[in-house]
């Protein structure tokens, strides 16, 4: 009996050993496998093209395409689009925006919508695997991708002629916003992708908020908010030491970054660093049009020391490296956070709109390094690159240009953001818009979940500055007013949107692969004290040079000069 059992165990052991070896083998083979996603995409694509050949000559020739009025096409046309889907959004095919556009234009869409964290990967794979869509909508095509996939590969088609012929609203946008056309025109003079223009400052400045309940507990009024680095430090110390959340424990996190990366944090990059007279940790352009690398400036050392002081005294979140938006939001809801970035305070802290009015936006800081002048930068550009592009697979580029042109009209740009009157919003007695509440859903959840992709995904549109103020939202009104008053007069652009020649773009990718990694790790190391700022500063500078940072600066300078010339 016992012997039999042993035998059984022994053979089980052999099977396991064989299995282990087999797994060893498959693991080796694993890296070489082509992703199943591509294969699926391939099949789908094949299906689609056969579908399309059933309705030949969709555009122009047979009179299906209308140059004016709606519908744009008389017989239904199917276009495949690819775009970034934010987690808050519902399935794109169920969104009212797309359904309405199909009804109006006669163009029906098929969607491929990878999520944010895999989007760049999926996009590259689609291009590589030849399964790319007819149109990129909300496709986040950066300038390098436009040059590579447009200028070099010919996958994205030039839009200039189409814009001239079929897109009066896009033309109007270029006229109303000088500099935009230079920023979306590739070095060969072609436009490969249309941008989103958001002319309202609150759309591209960084909204960093103070915890209003803490200010109240410490008797700090809005006028007393810190306006220089020393006062800022003092307030953070008070946040930490004086128990503003009133729970008796020293658990306050005065400054939270919501990012595992100091260089990626708007609070440090856009408000603290500029007060040291440096407009960016990496590449930036100074007032005289000279391109510089922030970390190579002498004051950058002082900046690092300032952050280290904040970190050592636990004024800066000591867990920033492992924190993410989920953990920070949880801490803010527990009233442990004093200062952080959020679209609106309600997203972070446990407050309603009325209470949120007490949560003021950060004031621009100054210091002796700026000669007492307050300076800040903004993390986003009013120009959002690459929101719409047409590929060479598209059978009806004219129709799609007319389709997208609607979104640059005032009506269209409102529509893509807010949807129909009576659904998400209605006119209040004041003539301003107001939200319609939907049970069990926050406003943004409803907007993204039911109405539009323009809730997390950068979509093609031209938002007029006055649009943001057209709401009967006291909080929004305050935010616009304080931003206009407190931020806008002092803000500077870090670096405009420019293009690089392909060889420069390649070289920049090579340099940045290691340089960005080095910067991210080293700056974090300096701040937490894994590296010594004074002792290792020279080594840091030498390594930056060794990584060809000077070559990088000169390439950016060339690109900036071209842009500046085109802008004149």
């Amino acid at each position, binding site marked *: 009996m016992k012997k039999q059992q042993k035998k059984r165990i*022994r053979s089980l052991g*052999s099977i396991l*050993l064989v299995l282990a*070896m087999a797994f060893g083998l498959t693991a*080796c083979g694993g890296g070489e496998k082509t992703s199943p996603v591509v294969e699926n995409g391939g099949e789908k694509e094949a299906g689609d093209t056969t579908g399309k050949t059933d309705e030949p000559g969709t555009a122009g020739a047979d009179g299906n395409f209308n140059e004016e009025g709606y519908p744009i096409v008389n017989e239904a046309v199917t276009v495949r689009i690819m775009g970034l889907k934010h987690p808050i959004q519902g399935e794109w095919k169920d969104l009212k925006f797309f359904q309405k556009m199909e009804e109006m234009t006669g163009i029906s869409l098929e969607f491929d919508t990878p999520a944010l964290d895999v989007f760049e990967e999926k996009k590259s794979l689609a291009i590589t695997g030849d399964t790319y869509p007819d149109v990129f909508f909300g496709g986040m095509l950066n300038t390098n991708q436009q040059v590579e996939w447009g200028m070099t590969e010919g996958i994205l088609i030039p839009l200039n002629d189409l814009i001239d012929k079929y897109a009066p609203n896009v033309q109007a946008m270029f006229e109303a916003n000088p500099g935009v056309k230079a920023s979306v025109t590739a070095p060969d003079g072609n436009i490969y992708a249309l941008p989103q223009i958001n002319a309202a400052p609150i759309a591209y400045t960084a909204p960093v908020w103070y915890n209003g309940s803490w200010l109240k507990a410490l008797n700090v009024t809005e006028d007393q908010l810190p306006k220089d680095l020393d006062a800022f430090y003092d307030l953070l110390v008070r946040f930490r030491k004086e128990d503003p959340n009133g729970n008796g424990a020293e658990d306050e996190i005065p400054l939270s970054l919501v990012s595992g990366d100091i260089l990626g944090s708007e609070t440090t990059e856009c408000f603290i660093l500029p007060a040291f007279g440096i407009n960016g940790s990496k590449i930036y352009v100074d007032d005289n049009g000279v391109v510089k690398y922030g970390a190579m400036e002498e004051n950058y050392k002082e900046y690092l020391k300032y952050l280290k002081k904040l970190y050592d005294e636990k004024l800066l979140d000591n867990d920033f490296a492992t924190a993410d938006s989920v953990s920070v939001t949880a801490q803010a809801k527990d009233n442990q956070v004093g200062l952080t970035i959020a679209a609106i305070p309600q997203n972070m802290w446990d407050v309603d709109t009325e209470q949120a009015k007490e949560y003021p936006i950060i004031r621009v800081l100054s210091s002796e390094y700026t000669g007492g002048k307050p300076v800040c930068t903004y993390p986003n550009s009013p120009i959002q690159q690459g929101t719409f592009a047409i590929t060479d697979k598209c059978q009806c580029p004219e129709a799609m240009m007319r389709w997208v042109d609607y979104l640059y009209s005032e009506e269209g740009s409102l529509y893509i953001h807010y949807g129909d009157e009576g659904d998400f919003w209605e006119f209040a007695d004041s003539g301003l818009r107001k939200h319609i509440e939907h049970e069990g859903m926050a406003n943004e959840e409803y907007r993204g979940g039911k109405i539009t992709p323009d809730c997390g995904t950068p979509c093609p549109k031209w938002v007029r500055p006055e649009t943001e103020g057209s709401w009967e939202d006291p909080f929004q009104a305050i935010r616009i007013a304080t931003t206009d008053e407190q931020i806008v007069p002092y803000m500077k652009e870090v670096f405009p949107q420019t293009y690089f020649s392909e060889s420069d773009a390649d070289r920049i990718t090579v340099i940045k692969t290691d340089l960005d990694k080095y910067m991210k790790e080293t700056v974090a190391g300096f701040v937490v004290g894994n590296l010594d700022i004074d002792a290792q500063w020279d080594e840091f500078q030498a390594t930056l040079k060794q990584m060809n940072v000077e070559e990088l600066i000169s390439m950016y300078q060339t690109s900036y000069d071209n842009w500046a010339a085109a802008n004149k």
Partner: protein
Amino acid sequence: MFCQTEVVQCPSSQQKGGFFMKRGKKRTYAVRRKGGLGRRILSCWQLYVFLIPTLVYFVIFSYGPMYGVQIAFRDFSVRKGIWGSRWVGLEHFQRFFDSYYFSQLIKNTLHISIYSIIVGFILPILLALLVNELRNGKFKSILQTVTYAPYFISTVVFCGMLTIFLNNTNGLFNQIIVGLGGKPVGFLTDPSLFSHVFVWSGAWQGTGWGSIIYIAALAGIDEQLYEAAKIDGATRLQRIWHINLPHLLPTMITLLILSCGSLLGVGYEKVFLLQNSLNAATSEVISTYVYKAGLVQAQYSFATAVGLFNSVINFVILILVNAVAKRISDTSLW
């Protein structure tokens, strides 16, 4: 089952299958047979039919995609495709060798993987020997279940748990340390601790599972040997040393060779999920670097070159270790 495969009528199947273990010279008698290869195959075709799915699998999924390796030597352009892209020779390898991170990547990869091979090799053997000595059947099975269980937690969940437990201020371990009057330890933010966190959390997860094979091998030892040893007055440790370990040796060596084959192939997911900007100095390994450069930044040729370099080194190490093992202990993979 091992003994059975060895006396199988068709020795050539062992060569094809590749990974069957042979023990010294015992096998050679079976090879000496008359007739050509074709006749030998024909005479036991049924066995070859069983081999087909495996062969097809490897041809399709392992050998097939290898033609793509050539983009390591080309300047891969999406539009021109793999065959149409320009040849650039060793440019991408050159760039990798000249990279600031080259030595750091190699060092980190070797450090983490040698460390985990050693720990992951010794602990399961110790656990197996321990379990084997247990007399109480119930306790034994509970112990085994408890040690296996962590293996079934998925890597993503496991890393999420680690990040929460090891958090600097709120994490379980640091709460305990601070509670006992110590200073919080930056398990995931101090670069010098990353390899320990990685390896010992791996040991917690994998030791039980890794010991199964050894426990099975120990169960196969003839009871008579123990009885004889007891009569001769051998102590428990002497019995382990002179009976158990020699019996485990072939299994140990096979598993060691296999793990050495992936010396530069540290598991990508776990490192990636535990990585942050502060520990990157010791946690960046070749596979995470390939992911970032290749898939995230779309530098396919460069990433392929790095990956190819990695595979070639692994291959060479596997052959070397195998040859050494063959010479020293008469046990090898082929």
